[in-house]
């Protein structure tokens, strides 16, 4: 073995971790026995290490350290890490926002517009109703699936700040008045599904969504059965 190879191995020879096996150790020792230069190098390394090693580990440990660590661990166990707390807050915020958006979509805030209501006696034509609304800047059409003879009232309300036609249908059956309210969302004012994303007709107890010619109708009824009663035969 050459001197430079032995000098590289010297760092491993005396390690307690057993980084050289017995054979390698013996080869290095045989070289040191016959090479004074490498032997001197090894001696100096051992001497220096013998001086430094005990001083390096000579660090007095505070007597309270063990107890302090255990106390800190105990205190830390009950604390929610800030990253976890932040993630929980973010999830809560998302859930509340999603719930609010869903509520707004399924229960649009209705604010009566400053437009007189129009009452019908059941004889008005579809054209006259739509003309009445158009004159007031409201793009709307009557839902074709609902029996027009039951229309009793037309109103203009604001949904998300935009004027929307609100139709009130009335049917008296077995002495009971059943009302249905319909909001007509025009494609001019609302993106498709803006208020009704995920809703389908008859998918809720009292709210039904119907699509017709690009318009979206949100129908509020007391029940599916009441809704059926307003549909054309």
């Amino acid at each position, binding site marked *: 073995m050459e001197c430079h190879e032995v000098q590289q191995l010297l*760092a*491993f020879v005396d*390690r307690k971790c057993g*980084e050289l096996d017995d054979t390698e150790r013996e080869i290095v020792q045989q070289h040191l026995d016959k090479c004074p230069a490498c032997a001197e190098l090894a001696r100096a390394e051992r001497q220096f290490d013998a001086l430094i090693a005990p001083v*390096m580990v000579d*660090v007095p440990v505070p007597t309270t*350290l063990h107890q302090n660590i255990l106390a800190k661990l105990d205190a830390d166990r009950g604390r929610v890490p800030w990253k976890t707390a932040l993630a929980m807050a973010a999830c809560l915020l998302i859930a509340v926002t999603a719930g609010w958006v869903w509520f707004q979509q399924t229960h649009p805030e209705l604010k009566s517009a400053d437009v007189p209501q129009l009452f019908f006696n059941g004889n008005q034509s579809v054209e006259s109703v739509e003309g009445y609304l158009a004159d007031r800047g409201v793009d709307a059409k009557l839902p074709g699936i609902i029996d027009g003879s039951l229309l009793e009232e037309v109103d203009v309300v604001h949904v998300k700040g935009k004027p929307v036609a609100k139709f009130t249908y009335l049917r008296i059956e077995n002495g009971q008045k059943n009302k249905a309210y319909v909001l007509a969302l025009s494609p001019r004012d609302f993106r498709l599904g803006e208020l009704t994303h995920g809703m389908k007709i008859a998918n809720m107890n009292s709210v039904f969504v119907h699509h017709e010619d690009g318009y979206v109708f949100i129908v509020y009824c007391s029940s599916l059965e009441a809704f059926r009663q307003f549909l054309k035969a």
Partner: protein
Amino acid sequence: MPWFGSSKSAIEAMVEAHYVALYRFAYRLSGSAQLAEDLTQETFCLAQKKLHQLREEERAKSWLFAILRNVYLHQARSSKLEKQVSLDGIPEIADRSTENGAGPDSAQLQKALNELPEAFRTPLILYYFEDFSYKEIAEQMNVPLGTVMSRLARGKAFLRQRLTDQSDLIVKANQGEVK
């Protein structure tokens, strides 16, 4: 080391087994008793949180040392504690001709260590602690084995130069040559 079922028992067993070695490493790394205590406590708190990441019980000590070093580096970066002293002038093989056999005391050694960049200080400390093989030191520092060997050789040469100079001064002072 016993390996208990609950994480509380496991972390407390780790504390029992390794807090002394960790504190000594932290002290030599930071050069301050207060910082060493903070680093040791913070290391065990992090270990408690990340205990599920430790797959092999026998690697616990190496894992803890690596956590402590990372905590130290993080703190040193944010507080600009870490110095960047160049070792360009220090060869891997130092001149041994001036060695006089007198060892440094703990404070002298710490002063010399404090002058070394962390990349050279850590392998030196771990080398003299003799707790880890070169391969384990390389894994802890996430560098190749050859890099550890090279840094160790240059770190030792630097240490030898600094401590020999100091020892010479002490010897000369004792002989009345320095006042």
